[in-house]
């Protein structure tokens, strides 16, 4: 049982993601589906630990949204959660949802990685509210994340529309005290499916009526926003600047300017223009504070308001107190408050690393040594192959993009005398998420990409979630395990071009890689070792370096294993006059998993069991 289920008369200390989960459960949610992605992962992970809810890791965000829609159609409150880029994947169905709406409450919790700590970009998901015609709730903190998620289900049912709860990293991943209300059990009176072809079948003959209904709904929601308790004008004595603010920036404004009048937006789309007008007429100037794009600002301008916003505030990253103070000083041409920020010490970077014994270290040991080869990467732990010491990646675009990009590069170079070899590197979960259609395209077009399908039986980067490739469902119960060799054969790869390779066996792995790169046909090399954090992984006796046998060649360091450290460096001049850099190494026993990769990389046999 989850710790959140302790009898809760008192408030709880929850992250925004946990608060969304608890809010959904307390609203009687009956189904939750998601694909993991930072900073949204813990939402459905937490819901899954509550009783009486069906929860799943779906294969991608579009599937998860459709699963939630299906539940809503049958009268069950449902939630899907995803990170901002996940909503791009789900967007095709999302657009239709704007038209057909929802039956039982349907909540889409999307967490934007404002500050891009673990994402390929920074996006403002509030745009989807405008694009799809959905109401958008923007909690400022975990407490509001709880209460707004609860309320979102009722709002969804009141207007028969999915509701977007837009979080940011600072809401999702900050713990605060959250007030908990009595749980509302799932209401069986909502249950039941009724055929409604004119609504759920989106053939062109049904569209006009749905668009007209959508326009009516937009108008009703605009009135709702004006009277919603989530939107309020907080009066203040200091009328020099009035703030219009949404999301976690509310607390920033409150801290920096406690006496300023503020319009706090919670139901931020549709925009409550009447409330904004009441503020605007009572202050000298209005500053719109929002993360990250000027959405509210532009809508206010279009409605005839003279407001400030991104003319003084940055268009990327979090708005913090110093950032806001700087913007206000530009606006008032006054003295900047506070002192200049202290400067950090010049120090080595500490990028995330592959784990000791990670099977990817064996793969990248070779990929880092390839010449005249373009390596199209994808999204997962293996993205780290772009970094030191391997530098073995040329592109990372989006989930599943490696294969399509690689195929385009191959086809574009077809007429060249010496085309570069092209590899695609993709993990098991990402392949199942959006990689498969691109492989079907490669075989169909007669392309020539060598695909490395790094099957570590885990959605590792987000915390080791289960997926259809490891034979376990979200709750750990057994599921049919996808056989990747048979899957890629079915997608058109010749049986002899499908190679199972053990990335711990360095020489044979290299042989397989070079064989497949030479052949002018699509091939898929499937690696066979699990993530070191997966239950399948077997830790072995750690290794050590026999100092007297080590000649300082430092080849073991090419693996990039974090358990290998340098004890001594030396420059030597060879008889040829060449100067070589030597490094003697040691192995940290506590970190070593005994994978034996470094022992195989060592030509001197200096690495042995400890």
């Amino acid at each position, binding site marked *: 049982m989850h710790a959140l289920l302790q009898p809760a008369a008192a408030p709880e200390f929850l992250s925004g993601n946990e608060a969304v989960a608890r809010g959904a459960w307390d609203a009687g949610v009956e189904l939750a589906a998601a694909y993991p992605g930072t900073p949204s992962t813990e939402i459905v992970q937490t819901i899954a630990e509550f009783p009486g809810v069906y929860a799943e890791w779906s294969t991608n965000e579009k599937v998860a949204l459709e699963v939630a829609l299906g539940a809503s159609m049958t009268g069950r409150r449902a939630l899907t959660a995803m990170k901002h880029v996940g909503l791009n994947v789900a967007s095709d169905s999302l657009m239709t949802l704007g038209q057909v709406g929802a039956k039982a409450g349907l909540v889409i919790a999307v967490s934007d990685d404002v500050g891009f700590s673990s994402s390929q970009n920074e996006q403002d998901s509030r745009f989807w509210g405008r694009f799809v015609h959905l109401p958008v709730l923007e909690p400022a903190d975990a407490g509001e994340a709880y209460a707004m998620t609860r309320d979102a289900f009722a709002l969804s049912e009141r207007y028969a529309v999915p509701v977007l709860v837009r979080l940011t990293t600072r809401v999702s*991943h900050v713990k605060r005290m959250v007030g908990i209300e009595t749980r509302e059990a799932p209401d069986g009176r909502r249950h039941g499916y009724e055929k409604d072809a004119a609504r759920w079948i989106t053939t062109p003959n049904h569209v006009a009526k749905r668009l007209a209904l959508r326009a009516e709904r937009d108008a009703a929601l605009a009135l709702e926003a004006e009277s919603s308790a989530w939107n309020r004008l907080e009066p203040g004595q200091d009328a020099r600047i009035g703030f219009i603010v949404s999301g976690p920036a509310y607390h*920033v404004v409150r801290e920096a300017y406690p006496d300023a009048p503020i319009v706090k937006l919670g139901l931020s789309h549709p925009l409550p223009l009447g409330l904004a007008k009441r503020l605007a007429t009572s202050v000298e100037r209005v500053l719109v504070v929002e993360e990250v794009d000027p959405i509210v600002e532009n809508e206010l301008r279009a409605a005839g308001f003279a407001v400030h916003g991104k003319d003084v505030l940055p268009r990327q990253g979090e708005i913090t107190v110093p950032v806001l103070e700087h913007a206000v000083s530009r606006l008032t041409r006054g003295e900047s408050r506070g002192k200049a920020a202290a400067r*950090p010490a010049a120090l080595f970077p500490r990028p995330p*690393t592959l784990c000791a014994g990670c099977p990817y270290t064996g793969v990248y040991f070779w990929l880092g040594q390839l010449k005249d080869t373009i390596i199209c990467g994808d999204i997962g732990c293996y993205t780290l192959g772009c970094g*030191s010491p391997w530098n073995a990646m040329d592109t990372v675009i989006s989930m599943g993009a490696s294969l399509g990009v690689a195929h385009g590069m191959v086809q574009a170079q077809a007429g060249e005398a010496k085309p570069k070899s092209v590899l695609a590197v993709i993990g098991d979960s990402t392949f199942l998420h959006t990689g498969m259609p691109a492989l079907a395209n490669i075989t169909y077009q007669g392309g020539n990409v060598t695909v490395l399908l790094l099957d570590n039986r885990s959605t590792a980067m987000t*915390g080791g979630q289960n997926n259809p490739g490891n034979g376990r469902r979200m709750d750990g119960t057994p599921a049919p395990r996808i056989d990747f060799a048979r899957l890629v054969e079915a997608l058109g790869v010749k049986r002899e071009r499908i190679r199972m390779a053990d990335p711990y066996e360095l020489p044979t792995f290299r042989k397989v890689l070079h064989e497949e790169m030479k052949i002018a046909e699509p091939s898929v090399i499937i690696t066979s070792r699990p993530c070191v954090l997966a239950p399948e992984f077997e830790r072995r006796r750690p290794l050590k370096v026999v100092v007297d046998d080590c000649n300082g060649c430092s080849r073991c360091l090419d693996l990039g294993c974090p358990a290998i450290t340098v004890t001594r460096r030396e420059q030597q001049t060879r008889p040829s006059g060449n100067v070589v850099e030597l490094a003697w190494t040691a192995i940290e026993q506590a970190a070593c998993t005994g994978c034996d990769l470094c022992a195989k990389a060592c030509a001197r046999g200096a690495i042995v069991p400890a």
Partner: protein
Amino acid sequence: MNTDILVVGIGGQGVMTAAETLARAALAAGLDATKTEVTGMSQRGGVVCSQIRIGAHIEATEVRPGQTKLLLAFESAEGLRWSHYLAHDGKAFVDSWRAVPPVVSSGHFEYPAQPATEMRDAGVDVIELDARSVATTLGDVRLANSVMLGAVAASLPFATEVLRTEVLRRFGKDAALAASNARAFDAGRDLTA
């Protein structure tokens, strides 16, 4: 006046758990507290930092450079990395353990010879502790975080006993673990007494 605290280290060290313990202790003492979490890419051997704010009522949750009261660093160079966050009257508690990353092993960067000395030269009040050695003496290197929490306890805006209770509460009915962590906490507390 709020007490801002940074807890820093590297992925996998238990930084988040230690930060959670501090925040929950503050709440148990009747104060308001917020705590930031890090997940995703930084988890794997990368830089990890949790920001805690403690006070009567917390609005913004980010901790600002130059205004932090306490820095709790579970690794030597990580203490230096975040030391510019400290206020002029702030204090750093740094584990002297050195975790050398592959970018240093591969020769691309250098690890500073004496991170704590560099901090002192920059005017930081540094308390350097060999928490891992203390923990190893007590029987398990994993007790290092409890040693560090014990060391910082007297500098917090609430009673040491509240933090000690919160540290031990995590072990529930496991009396052996609770006892060893109590010894570790007390050892840390005595180091800075």
